[in-house]
């Protein structure tokens, strides 16, 4: 799952497209107006819905269209990574990087690199029935005592 900021990174993805560059097809892109709009809840929702990794791409520090949205994203990112590791989710499954509208090559490299990292980690497999069905497997049995 990739959250791309409208002003830089989505432009970078566009540039990669118009230059007909190849990159791993595993990413589902969602355009947001700013990385500062990417709430931690979005990231958790992506993992909960089956994403194996979440990539947030925004403008380089100092280049944010809204001045400081990407700084907020950076702070949330570091805090969220720490929380995710407490949930047993590898930190590498969440990545924040900066891609400007002209950096088609960096966009391609970042996607490929992220996909390779996730492939090496394997599926996230939040297969715990507590997540899928709302109750743990224990609840499926008749547990009258």
């Amino acid at each position, binding site marked *: 799952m990739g959250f791309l900021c409208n002003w830089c990174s989505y432009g970078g993805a566009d540039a990669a497209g118009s230059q007909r560059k190849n990159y791993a097809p595993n990413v589902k892109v969602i355009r947001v107006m700013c990385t500062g709009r990417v709430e*931690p*809840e979005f990231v*958790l929702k992506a993992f909960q819905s089956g994403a194996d990794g979440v990539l947030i791409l925004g403008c380089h520090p100092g280049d944010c269209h809204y001045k400081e949205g990407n700084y907020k994203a950076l702070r949330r990112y570091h805090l969220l990574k720490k929380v995710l590791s407490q949930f*047993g989710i590898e930190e590498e499954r969440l990545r924040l990087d900066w891609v400007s509208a002209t950096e088609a090559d960096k966009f391609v490299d970042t996607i490929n690199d992220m996909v390779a990292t996730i492939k090496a980690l394997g599926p996230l497999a939040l297969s715990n029935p507590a997540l899928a069905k709302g109750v743990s497997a224990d609840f499926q049995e008749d*547990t009258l005592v």
Partner: protein
Amino acid sequence: MRIFRRTPLSKPKVAFYWCASCGGCEEAVVDLAEDILKVVAAVEFVFWPVAMDFKVKDVEALQDGDIAVSFINGAIRTGEQEHMAKLLRKKSGLVVAFGACAHLGGTPGLANFINRKTIFDRVYLNAPSVYNPDGILPQQKTMVEEGELTLPEFYDTVCTLDQVIDVDYYLPGCAPPPDLIMKAVEAILSGNLPEKGTVLAPDRALCDSCKRRDTKPEKAVIKEIKRVHEVLLDPVKCFLDQGVICLGPATRDGCGERCINANMPCRGCFGPTSRVVDQGAKFLSGLASIIDANDEQGIKKVIDSIADPAGIFYYYALPASMLRRKR
């Protein structure tokens, strides 16, 4: 309204039950003080293990839907609790999740950061005060001379009440304050009830009514996160402005600010407002935005000063969160 199946002469039947909880919710009922007499006058208790001598078979003997309302407190962590919740659901017109543990999982829900094996190993094998040379762990069935003894199954994952049964209303809080309990009881008795699934408390953030709100920081101010015992807390200034984590911005109002008035920060027992799914993630978002650092090193330094962020952001709401438990 489906709740009152009764003749004009009989009072509505009420049940009160506890699952994985500390007993504080039961205490909250006693805290109604003289108001409890009004409740006792208006209803008939048919089941309340902590206070009155009823047996499970008394509940089983009731017709389905016979109980007007069951107040169930505590999270669900054993087979017995699940069974009782399901039994009361069947026999009741309304089920109210009473208190933070039934509503969100509560502090027992923090066990979702570990699992049954870790808990059993600690409690029955490795705790310094334990002497258990044979390594005996609780069994669901044990044969003794007199026959078979049984214990309920202990689940790996703690669940909220609504993850196990259908819940009509939620009374939030650890424990719910007397005024909200009375309001809920009055609403149920009069049949003047809001939409199903409503949390019976104001739907705004705690900061909204906090006396310290004028000192709440608008901009990035936090250079270091301190724990409450590490700092002499100012009795009028916003806790966040003092670098102390207070879950007020991500927590529902209505508690009467019992903690804030005692000069302690909010820990989030009322859960999030209706617009928020994941209280911990929402608080994380707000806290990160007021950290005063823009470079990676500075940010990491502030974040490293937070001991156990997941534990504190999900203090009461881990089982109700999006991820629910550790992977």
